[in-house]
Every structure is written in C-alpha cells, then in structure tokens.
C-alpha cells in the first residue's frame, strides 16, 4: 500500500505532477489521483490518496460492476469502459480519494500504477512510501521510541 507520513511532507507537489503526467500527460492537479492540502497558517501539508481499503465500499456500491481488485497489486481499479459516471463510488469513499474526470466523464482513482506507483518514485522527502501492509505501521513504534529518547535526554 501507499503509506503517507504528513510530518515529512513539504508540499513540493512532485507526486501530484507525476501522477497527473502518468494519467494524462500533463501537470494538472485535477487530473491527479493524489491531492495535497496545504494549511499555510498552520505550516502543514497533507498528501492523500486511495488507501485501497480491504473492504472497499466504492467497489461494493458500484452499480455497473466497473470496479475490481487487482489480485496482483491489491489495487481497486475502475474499468473505464464499464463505468457509467454515476459518482456513487465518490459518495461511498470515506476519504474522498476518487474524482470525476471531466474529459472522459467517468470516475478516476489511484491504481498503484500497476504496482510501481509514480507518486512514490517522485516523492523527494520520503513522506510517501510503497510498502507491505505489515510494515506500514512500524513507524508508530519508531516514533514513540524516539519521543521517549528525546524526553529522557532533556530531563
């Protein structure tokens, strides 16, 4: 899965540009399947893209049966030819990670680029990683250990 560590995100937009380029050959935010929200006053940026839910509501709700799980990559993919553009998946998605492509008039979402996501390969800070689900939460342990270290050091 693509994991996101907002603490490392600098809001450089490399991921967004490259996602758009991979999808549509341009550098438009509206064509990217990843979004970056920057909160300037709070000095904080959050990248967000589909987390490929194990129980994918978007897939369950699709009336056209246009969505399926790629068994190899684990990605939930949209069959552009089957999609009827009803936007049910967009409503069902709990994280707002599906958008409507105004050119093709169908839904669009992250498909993990076939197992080698372009956003991750162009993330310069390391905020985005493509890793095994079992590894994805290790950072929590590392974080707490480091915080303890700092606390004990400054005591």
């Amino acid at each position, binding site marked *: 899965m693509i994991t996101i560590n907002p603490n490392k995100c600098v809001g450089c*937009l*490399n991921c967004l540009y490259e996602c758009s380029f991979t999808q549509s050959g341009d550098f438009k935010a509206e064509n990217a399947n990843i979004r970056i929200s920057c909160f300037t006053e709070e*000095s904080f940026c959050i990248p967000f893209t589909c987390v490929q839910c194990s129980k994918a509501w978007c897939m369950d709700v699709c009336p056209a049966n246009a969505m399926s799980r790629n068994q190899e990559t684990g990605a939930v993919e949209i069959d552009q030819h089957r999609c009827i553009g009803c936007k049910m998946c967009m409503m069902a998605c709990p994280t707002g990670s599906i958008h409507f492509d105004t050119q093709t008039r169908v839904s669009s979402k992250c498909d993990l680029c076939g197992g080698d996501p372009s956003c991750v390969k162009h993330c310069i800070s390391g905020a985005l990683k493509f890793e095994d689900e079992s590894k994805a939460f290790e950072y929590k342990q590392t974080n707490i250990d480091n915080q303890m270290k700092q606390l004990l050091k400054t005591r």
Partner: protein
Amino acid sequence: MSQREIVTTLCRMCDDHCAIDVSLEDGIIVDIQGQENHPWNQGRTCTKARAAIDMVYHPDRLKKPLKRTVDGWQEIELETALDEIADKIRKIQSKYGDRSMTVWKGEATGFNQQEELAKRFCQAMGSPNYLSVDSLCFTTRYLGYTLQYGAWTAPDLENSDCILLWGTNPPTSHPFMTRMVMDAKEKGAKLIVMDPRLSMIGRTADIRVPLKAGTDGAFAWGLIHLFIKNKWADQKWLDQYTVGYSKFAKYAKKFTPEFTAAECGIPVETILQVAEMMHLSSPKVSNYVGNGLEHYQNGLNNVRAISCLDVLTGSFDEKGGNILTESLGANDLALYNEVPLDHLEPIGAKKFPVLYKLRHENNTMTALDTMISDDPYPIKGMILTAGNPIRTNPNAKKVKEALESLDLLVVRDIFMNECCEIADYILPAATFLERTDIETTRNYQVVSLRQKVIEFPECQDEYQFYHDMAQRLGFGKYFPWKDEPELTSWLLEPTGISMEDLKNHPEGIQYKPIRYRKWEEGDLASPTGKVELTSDFLKSHGNDELPVYIAPEFIARPDPRFPFTLITGARKLLYFHSRNHNIPRFKEAIPIPELEIHPEDAESLNLKDGDNIEITSRIGSVTMPLKIMASNEILKGHLQAPSGWKDNNVNLLTHDDILDPISGYPLLKGVMVNISKVADDVQYLVD
C-alpha cells in the same frame, strides 16, 4: 521487434546529480527513472528528471552551427565554423594580446570536470581571464568555510540531532537533501530554518527564524554570544585547535540576545530557544548554508560567522555535525603551474584578490565593466558556454551592453537565448545525456559515472569542442585525449577505480570510508593549520580578520524612495535558474512569475492579488503580477520575485556595483525597491 535497453547515468537537470536509469527503444530515450541503489536518490527522482526527454528532443533544440550575416543567421558546417572562430580568436589575440580573450562558463554544463576543462582551455589560450557563474553561486560559501577550516565541510544530516538551514529550501534546490533532513527528523532530530520567507522546508521546522534579509551574520553572532556566555563550548579544544579566540570572544560581546533580536527583527525568546536546542544536541549539530546568503554585501562574513558555530557546538568533523569530506584524488586538469599567467593582470584579481587566489575566478561584474571601458586593457572576445548572463547576472541591461561591445561572441548552447541573439556564432552543444564525466557525492564519498546515452552529430560535448579548438589554435598538446571517455579514464588513473568499475556499479563506488575527527590526525589545510577564528590572510589583503557583521544597506541607510526590501531568486521546483521555461507542461503548471508580498503591505497600498506591479530599483524597473501571501509566509516590508524569466527579468533591478568586498558577490537580495500598480490596460509580458 524494437530493441530496448537501459543505461544508468547521472541526471543534470539540477546540481543534485541523481542516478537515473534511462530506457531507450531503438536508440530513442523513452523513459527516465531513479536508479534503485544509489545512496543519494535511492530510486527516486524529482519531476525534472523525466523532463530531460522533452529537453533533448525539443523541436527548438539547436542542431546546426549558425553564423551571423547581414542577412540574418546562416547555417554553416561545424568544421567551417570552428575554422572561422579560431581565425578570429588569433586575430583578436594578435591585435590586443592573449588576455583579451575570455571563456565564460555557465551553470548548465555542470561543475568539476566540465568547469576544469573550461579553465584549462582559457589558461592554455594564454588568458588569465576565466569567467563563470562562480561569481554568483557557490564560491562565497566555499571561501567562507575554506578561510576558517581550509575546506568547505558537508553537513552530516542523516546522523544529526539538530539541523540548521540558513537561506536554503532543499525541496527546490537540492531535492534529495530533503529526504536526508526528513530521515533525521524521523529519528528525532530538530530542524531550525532561517529564512525571511516560509519556504517548503520551513513548513516542517521545529523553530522558524523569519529574520530580516541579510541579518544572518548577526543571528550567528547572537548564538556565538550565548555559547560563550554560558560556557557551553569546550574551552580546552578551542585553545588547542583554534587561533584568534580572544578577539573573537571580545567581538561577540555586543551581540546580546536583545541587540540580536532587534537587528534580526525576531523575538528574544527565539534566539534563546535556538541556542538551547543547539546546546542540548551538541555535538550532533549540523549547519547548512544555502546560496541565499551569498547575495549580500556582507555575505562572506555572514557565512564565516555561521561556520564558527561548528567549533562551539563541537560538531566540526564529528558524526552528525559538519564533516571534512575527503576528495577522490583524481588527476587534476588545472594548468596554473604549467602556464602561469598571474603576471598578466587577471581582471578582478586586484579588486578581489581572495577570490582570485583561492578559486582562480575573475569577478564577472568587474570583467563586464572592463569590456565596456577597456580599462585596464581591452577584452574583445568571449566563448560563452551553457550560460545566459543577460538573465542571470545583475544589471541585465549592462551585461547586454558589455557583450555587444565584443568583437567576437561565440555562444555554445542547446536553445536560443538572449545571449545567442547577440552572438557572432552559435554552436549547438551537447546535453548531459550526450557526454561522459565523473561526479562525486560528497556526503557519502561516492564516485559515479555519467555516460553518453545518445548523440546528435554536430552537438559537440565540451571536451570535443575544446579539443578541436585547441588543435586549431596550436595548443593541442594540452588536450591530448581522443575523447571524453579517454579523458575520464585518465582522470581516474590515480584512484584505483576504472571506467569499467564505474560502469559495473550504477550505484556508484565509495572511494574512501567516511572518517570523523580528522583534526586529531594533523594540521588542517588553513594557513595556520588550525581553525582560523581570525584570519591573517584576510587581514593581509586589507579585510577584517574577524567575520564581522555589517548591517545590510536597507537597515543601515534606508532610502524613503525605495521602502521595500526585495529578495530575488527564490527557487521554483520546475525551473532551474533560466532553464526549463520551454517545457510545455512545466509552463502550464507555473505559467508566470509572481511578486510575493505581505498581506498588510498589500492592504496599505490598496493592491489586490493578480494586480500588475511595476517594481523599481535605483537602476531599472520590471513588471510582474502580484501574489499576496499569508501573513506568516513573508516578512512585512519584504518582497520576493523569482529570477530566470525572460520578459520579467528581475536582474534589470539588481546591482552590479554593490559587491561583497571579499568575494565580490553582487547584491541580488535585500535590494531596495519601490512598487506601484500598473494601469489595468497595460499588458505585462510573459515569456
């Protein structure tokens, strides 16, 4: 079936030199991705790397030599062009002397090997007048650190507990330094960012220090003051390994937190917090100074003051501090001993002797003046390679005038630009994908190979051009290698690493393991062999021995006609200096340059987002649309305008006569300006 192959080489879309896997189909580049195992970029790249494909196959690419005629540009054969240029160089040199020719090396070919070739050619041609982008970038920092330590240290970011970034935004200038900073932060390191603007990296800082432009030196002295006052430094170490400590400590006295805070325009608590954070993290404190600090009148001494922090935190050549990296030990292309030319009055050497003695760089601002005045002697010809000083040097109008005054201007480039437009000959140059050279990644002491991936028949690489010109001008003996791979093999000879080894190791080869505390092993490369808190060398050249702080002009002598302080040249991710503006998707993403302003300043002048603004300095004016920032993104009274845009060239505003007295660097930041709204019916130009 089409033939697909992958060649690993190094990117040069910026100065990060990421290792890249270039995919070719039937000899045409179809994809560029990060090389998995190189320690610098670890399989990733920024978005500029893949755009190299657009650059090399761009329809506007120069592919034939051009000669200026009364009827306009005329295509000529490469050999004819080189013959004619050689003939003209001979005529100029016999009429005005060898020193009347010069080589100007821009940023786009890179440094190290390419830079040394240009210097070698200039020297072999008998001219001590080598000009380059080093008059604007890198050298102030190089000199600042070299004067104290005998070398410029590298920040050991990944092992650091406290990182200080001064006037730099790695995400746009050195993308993969971002990863190093973030990895350290993940392990618990604190990040402190000094910048009048809230940059991308500033968003992640533990402490932001939004100090006034050019006051970094005062801030550094404020920190020095606290380290000395609180006796946080290792006095025994200082006594043993430094010179000038008592004068240094005496000078620090006046930089009390109150004085420093007032000078920098920050709260007193900020300086106390930063000092304490550094103290708690000592010796794992690393400092990195960016190009931003170089463009001030007191730039060099500001850098020197910052460098002194390393001995106070004990981080000098310590793990997690700032390390004296070791060089590869390759053969040297310099000809200064074989062809000594110092007696020929190198331009700028008298005015900026430290710059000339330590870098063999002739100050470009002085050289441009010389071209116009012929004083002390005429400069009549120039080979300009991979640079566009009309866009990147200060006082653009004068740069153009100076270049136009030459009898011969030869420009080697890959696209038409303002300098090509006034040239006598334009030679199509090779891009980084069309040449072979070696690069070292200092932080890891790794050497990697850049290898030729494709070629275009008449687009010569730098070596081939210098080689062919040298043959024609009668000093071919200095360029004996058949081609760039043969030259590169020769350079590698003393290292025990061969071209073949490098080809077999796309991840690069570590040439020496990283070692710390090398000051224990013997003298430093500074004149006294110690850390020079005071420099006799500088004193003997009429400069202050201490890294004194002098307030920028806009603070010391404000001028009511120019109430705003303009910072120029904050980097944009997609553009690199004047490059990449012709890549359509880049242009779509960042279509125009924008003048950044604090919301209260905009409100007081009744200006709105997107208004066309005329910016005026003492020497010129330029127009740009306005962008009103959030109140924490830029200091009140400060403005920021990006550089590198053709029709909105900020260097029409910047000064070539306000120079750092030691390094000769021009004032590109902290420029005093005024702004006014342009009537709505006047269209601003966008290139």
